[in-house]
């Protein structure tokens, strides 16, 4: 273990949260590393300082405080203040939000897996063919503190257990990654490019992924991911015939008749609307929730390595943690999802699960597909993403494919210059 990892463990060590093995590792490291030992002692002093903290003030002060409280109570009663209602249960709301969050996550995963990775493994996309256009907005948002959108828990279900109301997600946790597109340009793609199958050998049967000029979002730079119907009428955004006057901002995802839509301000995605058809009433339903939470997790690569070993899967990119899947309870995997309210101008893609490696993919074909996409796109950010994907492929690919992939990278880099 290196010092960074140890520093991370020290907090748990102080709280006696480590198992025996980790505890011994920490103690051994502290014996041999003066810097970490000093840091540990600082943490202990901090703890001691907190433990010693005792509000002072003389008895008179506290008696006055008590009297002030009782006076306030008298006044409140005199004013006939309605007592607080019993605590309302927000369980239902949270459940709705949890489902909404899951749908959004699954839809995002599916769309971008369709776009970039292994769409043949997402049967519902082939059935619905609802998502067939992707357009990217303008702007140059930087990866600011990406507040994590929300935190929820969802019990994984096996495929056969998933109801028809839910997207048919793979059982294995997918990895959703958000990338900030550096200096993307909004550029329309001509018809010949639109009809070209950019994924080539990877997904020949796929609906082509195309880029179109989006309606400019006022004061905002966001990505658009739209359905055909959304593109044909950008203001007709949702269900039950409801028409909304404001233009679609952010992300719109369609999955089996459900629409998840996120609106963004200049900094980050701030609201999600998940819509669908209630099959019992045949009415459109829409659940809206804020994606703004107080969570921001940004990990260094060491932290990532450390935490990756502790959870089932950890999704992050550019340092921002997007979700953590953890725990096995009574045979069911409980998924804690921290869906990032990512910087507004982002590209989202998926990669394979962290701890459940996929069968060896056709690396060279994937590399060619990325290369082709990078060549035809006029969006700088997308080109950058493809380049990154190629570089990542080099790290994982069979040795036989590495050389060819490196040639593609060199070509792409020289073209970019």
């Amino acid at each position, binding site marked *: 273990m290196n010092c960074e990892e140890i520093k991370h463990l020290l907090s748990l060590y*102080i709280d006696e*949260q480590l198992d025996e093995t980790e505890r011994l590792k920490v103690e051994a490291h502290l014996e041999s590393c003066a810097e970490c030992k000093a840091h540990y002692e*600082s943490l202990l002093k901090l703890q001691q300082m907190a433990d010693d903290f005792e509000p002072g*003030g003389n008895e008179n002060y506290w008696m006055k*405080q008590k009297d002030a409280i009782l006076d*306030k109570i008298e006044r409140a009663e005199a004013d006939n203040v309605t007592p607080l209602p019993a605590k309302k249960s927000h369980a239902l709301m949270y459940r709705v939000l949890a489902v909404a969050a899951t749908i959004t996550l699954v839809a995002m995963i599916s769309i971008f897996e369709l776009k970039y990775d292994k769409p043949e493994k997402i049967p519902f996309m082939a059935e619905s063919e609802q998502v067939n256009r992707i357009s990217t907005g303008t702007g140059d948002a930087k990866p600011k503190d990406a507040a994590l959108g929300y*935190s929820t828990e969802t019990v994984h279900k096996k495929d056969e257990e998933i109801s028809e109301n839910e997207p048919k997600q793979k059982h294995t946790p997918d990895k959703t990654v958000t990338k900030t597109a550096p200096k993307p340009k909004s550029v329309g793609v001509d018809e010949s490019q639109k009809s070209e199958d950019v994924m080539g050998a990877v997904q020949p049967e796929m609906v082509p992924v195309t880029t179109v000029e989006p309606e400019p979002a006022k004061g905002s730079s966001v990505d658009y991911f739209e359905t055909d119907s959304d593109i044909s009428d950008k203001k007709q955004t949702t269900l039950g015939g409801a028409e909304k006057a404001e233009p679609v901002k952010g992300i719109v995802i369609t999955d089996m008749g459900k629409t998840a839509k996120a609106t963004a301000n200049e900094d980050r995605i701030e609201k999600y609307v998940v819509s669908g058809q209630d099959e019992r009433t045949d009415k459109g339903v829409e659940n809206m929730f804020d994606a703004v939470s*107080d969570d921001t997790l940004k990990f260094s690569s060491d932290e990532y390595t450390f935490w990756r070993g502790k959870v089932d899967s950890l999704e992050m990119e550019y340092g921002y943690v997007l979700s*953590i899947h953890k725990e096995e309870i009574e045979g069911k995997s409980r998924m804690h999802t*921290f869906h990032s309210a990512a910087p507004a101008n982002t590209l989202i893609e998926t990669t394979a699960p962290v701890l459940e490696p996929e069968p060896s993919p056709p690396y060279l074909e994937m590399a060619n597909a990325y290369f082709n996409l990078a060549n035809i796109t006029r969006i700088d950010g997308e080109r950058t993403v493809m380049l990154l994907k190629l570089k990542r492929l080099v790290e994982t690919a069979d040795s036989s494919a590495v050389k060819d992939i490196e040639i593609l990278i060199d070509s792409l880099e020289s073209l970019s210059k």
Partner: protein
Amino acid sequence: MAVDKTNRLAESQINDLQDDRENILSAQGGDKEAYGKLVLKYQKRLFRFVIMMLGSKDATEDIVQDAFVKGYLALNSFDIEKPFYPWLATIARNLALNKIKKSEKEKPASEYEDLIETAPDDKADPLANVINKENEQRLAKALAALPEKYRTVFVLRTFEKMSYEEIAEKLNIAPGTVDSRLYRAREKLVQMLKDLL
């Protein structure tokens, strides 16, 4: 010996709970003096909790008072089988969080930084009346300068001695997030208070 000590502790806790229960039942019947006993018993602890979240004595006094008032007005909904303080602390925490959200809208973020820089030499600091030691004032203000999410987790763990699981449940976050927030809170606090540590 140790067993005796444990038994005595358990006995005193049971008596404690029983006292609270009697005072709560009386207060539910309108006996404000009984409620006053609960105020005297818990106000210091609640004060410490809130001041660690807010870093301002005046705001803390208000929140502590309001929490007790709200607690009294909602006393009929209180489950007598449960301990009183955690319930009261939840009310105080919600009030404190509202206060933080409100003041973040009103104040520039730099105000907290100014507070920290001036604190050690500021003899007129209102915190000085209630927090005697300079170190404690520094700690309170360093905590106030932390992002709320880190501060809350740190305060719940360090001052309220809640377990990771309890914190996760209370804040509706994953236990792993509790880990990472605590880690960050401590790292930042060590950095801010390094001259004292």
